[in-house]
């Protein structure tokens, strides 16, 4: 069930109505039923997969927390007759047993994800290698249907189990409550990957009906649809033409970089706005996934503003554990003795970063283009970290050039926007050599620039002049609204000004209905992140 269908709107309406009618204690059951309906509508045969993840992680979490409490009892009982070393050894043994359970359930769940998402890809790669070495034999490649939102709910479940292991959050007693946490319907398709400690309390205590939740939620949903249907889907027509057409290189490649950034911004932040808005209707505030990403001055800052919950998941559950793990420690010690202090200090950081970004790319999709996309992002961050001292010297020499203000600030923002945009077109072509060829063509195919002026850019790509005018106006509106969101979100500000709220919502509905790219001829596009 995609966000751009009437059945989704009906489901929200029914769920909100029921939610506030039932007594507070059992309100969470409405959310669970809505989530099951929403998920089953997407395809009933996926249910066993999400059920498997829910059940395995639930049992493991209960087991770990029981083992932990039993261990504490044992220690508090025998505190006197155990020496410090004995106590330490016992604790280490117990922790090892808990760790075994954790590893088992992680391997199982990531195994499901790997099999469902990457079998085709790995077998193709194997076939590629085999044919590269002249072996005629090829392995048959089954195309497995990817369960809806498997990448997102698997991460939410594994994040939860690791938090329980680390004692950061309480293991859920009731399996149905836990199932709601994993499959809460606004989150299941494209996140955010929220943490149990933050989301669970809001999910289970029945939130009371408050007017500003409803008004803020409604505005945010409309704002999401406006960004998705009016902006992203209109620009998508041009992007698709460039990707599927032959010979659209040179200026068109730059066009693709800019327009695809507009598409992915409208599509992903729009989808998340709808998710946030729907959750807000139930009085639930989810973690923000975007904070004005295109105003970031550097790649590092960009990844703190774009898809925040994914970034923090990879940092907390992959990057840190890996870089402070024992094997990494031993490796650094050996390198430090042999290659000197400089390398020793850098090695864990570089290795951990590259591995994390390799897996981030792989998580985005089963394809070389995604992996390369991840690696390039990693390398850019590391290179800019290496050049930091040079930047520091540069800034000392020109103190007036402040990255946050003035022309230089704008320059940094545009530079980061174009840099991230160029790396992102790896998603579009899905084929690494073609992406690089197309990117390279910007710098030598100057003949294509005349298309910009003789109007053939309009005729070639199927996006009319007036639609570009609309896109420019809409992007300006988004730009000004997000600028005023520094301190507080627009939906919260508006929920205190009823007249302005009503006018804004009406205008949004009118613009979406008239200027939206939906219906016949546009085949209302699936959210890009839905295929994850």
């Amino acid at each position, binding site marked *: 069930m995609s966000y751009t269908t009437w059945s989704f709107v009906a489901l929200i309406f029914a769920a909100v109505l029921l939610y506030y009618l039932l007594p507070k204690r059992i309100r969470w059951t409405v959310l669970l039923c809505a989530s099951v309906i929403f998920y089953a509508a997407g395809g009933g045969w996926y249910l066993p997969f999400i059920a498997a993840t829910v059940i395995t992680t639930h049992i493991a979490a209960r087991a770990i927390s029981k083992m932990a409490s039993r261990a504490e009892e044992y220690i508090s009982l025998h505190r006197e007759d155990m020496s410090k070393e004995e106590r330490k050894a016992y604790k280490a043994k117990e922790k090892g047993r808990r760790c075994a359970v954790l590893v088992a359930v992680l391997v199982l769940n990531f195994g499901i994800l790997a099999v469902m998402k990457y079998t085709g890809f790995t077998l193709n790669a194997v076939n*590629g290698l085999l044919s*590269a070495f002249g072996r005629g034999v090829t392995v048959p490649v089954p195309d497995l249907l990817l369960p809806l939102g498997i990448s997102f709910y698997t991460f939410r479940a594994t994040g939860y189990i690791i938090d329980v292991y680390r004692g950061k959050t309480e293991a859920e007693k009731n399996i149905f409550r836990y199932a709601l946490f994993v499959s809460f319907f606004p989150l299941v398709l494209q996140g955010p990957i929220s943490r149990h400690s933050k989301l669970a309390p809001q999910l289970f205590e029945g939130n009371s009906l408050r007017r500003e939740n409803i008004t803020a939620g409604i505005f945010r949903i409309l704002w999401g649809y406006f960004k998705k249907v009016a902006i992203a889907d209109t620009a998508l027509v041009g992007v698709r033409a460039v990707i599927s057409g032959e010979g659209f290189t040179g200026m068109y490649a730059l066009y693709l970089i800019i327009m695809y950034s507009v598409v992915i911004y409208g599509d992903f932040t729009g989808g998340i706005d709808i998710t946030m808005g729907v959750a807000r209707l139930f009085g639930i505030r989810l973690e923000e996934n975007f904070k004005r990403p295109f105003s970031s001055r550097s790649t590092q800052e960009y990844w703190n503003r774009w898809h925040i919950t994914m970034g923090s998941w990879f940092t907390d559950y992959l990057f840190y554990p890996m870089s402070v793990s024992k094997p990494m420690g031993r490796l650094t010690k050996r390198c430090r003795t042999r290659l000197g202090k400089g390398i020793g200090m850098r090695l864990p950081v570089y290795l951990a970063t590259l591995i994390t970004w390799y897996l981030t790319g792989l998580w985005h999709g089963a394809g*070389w283009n995604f992996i390369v996309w991840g690696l390039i992002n990693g*390398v850019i961050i590391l*290179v800019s970290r290496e*050049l930091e*001292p040079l930047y520091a010297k540069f800034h000392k020499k020109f103190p007036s050039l402040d990255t946050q203000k003035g022309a230089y600030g704008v320059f940094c923002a545009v530079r980061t926007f174009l840099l991230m945009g160029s790396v992102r077109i790896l998603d579009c072509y899905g084929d*690494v*050599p073609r992406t690089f060829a197309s990117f390279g063509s910007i710098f030598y195919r100057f003949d294509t620039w005349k298309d910009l002026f003789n109007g053939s850019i309009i005729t070639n790509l199927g996006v009319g002049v007036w639609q570009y005018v609309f896109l420019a106006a809409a992007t300006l509106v988004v730009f000004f609204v997000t600028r005023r969101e520094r301190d507080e979100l627009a939906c919260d500000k508006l929920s205190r000004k009823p007249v302005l709220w009503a006018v804004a919502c009406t205008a949004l509905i009118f613009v979406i209905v008239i200027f939206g790219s939906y219906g016949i001829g546009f085949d209302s596009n699936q959210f890009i992140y839905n295929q994850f």
Partner: protein
Amino acid sequence: MKRIISILVLTLALALTLGVFCGCDGGNSDKKTYTFNADGIMLKIGAPASVVNSLGTPIAKDESASCGGIPGVDEVYVFSGYKVYTTPAKDGNVINKIEITDDSVKTPEGVAAGSTKAEVIKAMGEPTSESGTSLVYAGNGMKLTFIIRNDTVTSIQYVAE
């Protein structure tokens, strides 16, 4: 100095991974596309209509608009032994049907009007589908149909799917 080395090492590693990975993208195989050869010029379903001009002057030609003011004009060109039909598409007309009308012209596989059903299957292999009055060979975005009347081919048509 150390800083420059580490940058070089990094970019080298990246370039290496790119090189290895790029070679492994498998191409995609597609079904066979049946084409018709008109005295040396290959005609394919979906090809732009301009290729018809290179076939010389047709014996007869006609065009007709579809009713209801839908823009675009369907055309037919009659040559000796075969006809070529074109229809409006995104940027200009494309060939949407080629029909062999008599036995003076053969398909590239050597089948002509008048051949028997067995000859067709021998030349073309097993059909994708078969009915009492036709043998159909599905191709990429098109199909090749042999119309059979009491065991002999009366008409051969390449039609857009």
